[in-house]
């Protein structure tokens, strides 16, 4: 029979026969400690389940014993008992110590011991709960920030016959700095699409995301024309100028419908951020495309963003749309050029953020551009299925590893004439 050990610390020279007897009857092995010695030996501390200290030793002494036990990491319940001085017992009890009084009946003693132990357990549970509540509050703040952020994402993309527009948005554990947007321009003649990545993550990045998205959309929607008299830091990118003849005849993107809103939005946002938020040193990479759904012509500004992939029907190799200017928010007078691309029936444009390329598996290996290009070479179905299969592939790579960065993907696809 493994006895539970009860340690009795009594007044020097006194006996605690009644108490000892009751303890034994309650299946305790009784040990004594000389109260003259402040330090209770470690082996006794470790073994004792219950420590009974005489109130007559005085509150201070009792407290010292209690502290000593706590410091030694003992799980024992500390209980005071009287040795004739009930005033002393009162003092200890008022100070919060549990106590037992004669007669020391074994059953009563047992009950009292149980309740002392339970109280001690309850105290540690309460401490755990307090820590959890703090954690929950933090998580609640994060989820509020994420809700706000979701409010800045479009409920749905605009729709057009012959086109599929789809998006996938997976923020990392913390609040995202990525965003995407899609809206009509110039009385619905054009559609604007934005994918952007604010540097850093967390609540600060999310707030900047909201600011940038608002500036871009508001400026684009409310810009009239740009004027040839403007001395703007924007122009035409001769390298990407491989546009169609289409409606414009001589095909110059600067004269396209939507060029004004596009350029004003990007340069205006860049200037505002660089001027007013220098101290915070936030910046964002962005891709802003303006699509003519009738002709399939896309004019765009790529501000330091990952080059979107243009997947052309019948051509195995995807085409990259490289940057036409720097990230926004860094320098006030940054220069942005317009690039052009053409989406014919069956073609698709895949716009994505860093999070796709950087998605890491447990070995720390990133998804990488190679895998993305490889996936893009496979024949794709609808915009939604292209996103689904790419997402599956990313998941297959990452598996159990924690998501490190926000993942955002947008697909614009022009339906094939053969599509159902």
């Amino acid at each position, binding site marked *: 029979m493994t006895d539970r050990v009860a340690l009795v610390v009594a007044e020097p020279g006194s006996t605690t026969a009644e108490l000892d007897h009751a303890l034994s009857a309650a299946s305790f092995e009784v040990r004594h400690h000389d109260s003259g010695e402040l330090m209770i030996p470690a082996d006794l501390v470790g073994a004792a389940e219950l420590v009974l200290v005489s109130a007559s030793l005085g509150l201070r002494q009792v407290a010292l014993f209690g502290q000593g036990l706590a410091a030694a990491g003992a799980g024992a319940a500390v209980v005071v008992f009287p040795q004739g001085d009930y005033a002393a017992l009162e003092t200890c009890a008022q100070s919060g110590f549990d106590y037992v009084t004669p007669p020391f009946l074994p059953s009563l003693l047992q009950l009292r011991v149980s309740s002392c132990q339970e109280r001690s357990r309850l105290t540690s549970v309460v401490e755990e709960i307090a820590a959890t509540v703090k954690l929950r509050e933090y998580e609640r703040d994060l989820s509020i920030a994420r809700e706000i952020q979701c409010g800045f994402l479009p409920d749905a993309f605009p729709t057009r016959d012959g086109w599929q527009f789809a998006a996938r948005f997976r923020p990392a554990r913390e609040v995202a700095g990525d965003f995407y947007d899609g809206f009509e321009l110039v009385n619905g003649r054009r559609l604007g699409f934005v994918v952007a990545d604010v540097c850093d993550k967390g609540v600060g990045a999310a707030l900047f995301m909201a600011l940038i998205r608002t500036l871009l959309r508001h400026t684009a929607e409310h810009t009239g024309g740009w*004027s040839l008299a403007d001395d703007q830091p924007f122009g035409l990118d001769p390298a990407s100028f491989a546009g169609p003849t289409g409606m414009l005849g001589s095909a110059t993107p600067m004269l396209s419908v939507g060029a004004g809103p596009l350029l004003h939005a990007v340069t205006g946002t860049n200037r505002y951020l660089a001027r007013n938020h220098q101290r915070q040193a936030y910046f964002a990479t962005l891709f802003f495309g303006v699509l003519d759904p009738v002709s399939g012509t896309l004019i765009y500004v790529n501000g330091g963003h990952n080059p979107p992939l243009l997947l052309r029907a019948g051509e195995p190799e995807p085409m990259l749309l490289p940057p036409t200017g720097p990230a926004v928010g860094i320098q006030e007078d940054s220069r942005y050029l317009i690039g052009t691309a053409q989406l014919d029936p069956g073609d698709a444009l895949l716009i994505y953020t860093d999070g796709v390329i950087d998605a890491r598996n447990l070995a720390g290996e990133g998804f990488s551009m190679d895998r993305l290009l490889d996936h893009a070479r496979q024949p794709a179905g609808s915009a939604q299925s292209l996103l689904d299969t790419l997402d599956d592939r990313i998941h297959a790579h990452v598996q159990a590893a924690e998501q490190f960065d926000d993942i955002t993907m947008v697909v614009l696809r022009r339906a094939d004439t053969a599509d159902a």
Partner: protein
Amino acid sequence: MSNIVAVHSWRGGTGKSTLVARLGCLLAARGLRVGLVDASLQAPGLHEALGLDGTQLRSCLWDYLSGACEIEDTHVDLAALMPAGCAGRLYLVPARTDVEVITLSSASGQYDAGLLHEGFHRLIQVLRLDLLFIDTYSGANHEAMHAIASADIDILVTRAGSAENRSATFAASIAAKVGRTPPEPLLVVNMAPPDTDLDSVGVLAGAAYQRTVAAVLPRVHDSLDDGGPERHVAGLHAGLGQLADRLLLAAPGRAG
């Protein structure tokens, strides 16, 4: 192919609208399909030069620019001005119809500039035009500059002896900004005083503006019919004919 002719001037009163109206009639009478756009949103006047009653106009360029309709919905067919049996056609897109409220909103520049360019080309396509003339308000205003930006031929109209901005590179710099080859620059010296030596006026003006002089036109009375002394009217017609010939030569090609 696009055959857009921008007609502009630095100063007012150089007779642009009348010139555009006369050229349009002349070329249409020769069998061409001609479009005329009044891009003078601040001071519409082309319809008057064509003898139209402003109150009769139902639709205008501004309706298209503000998103109310497509540009081809705004044109007026001027068949009534054509000789009977003529194969050519003449169409007008007036600038504004709501002259009463013209002062309430400054329309100039208050729209996506791409709409102008796209609209010009759409008009050419839908109406199968051989030539499209853009009449503008004087000076370096928004619509004039965008007309030049779109143009294949740029006619600067000036008055004889006028001392005004003579930038030789103006049109070329606009074209460079938008990444196009510059329009062919022509000069028309208009409203030359009576009994002027038209040839020497032309030589002087050409040197001053560093442009090819396409025509020197004598001043006659404003209306198309009542011209004044015979020889002036004859001179005008000859000059206009010369100009029309030149435009036909300079234009890249005719629509099918």
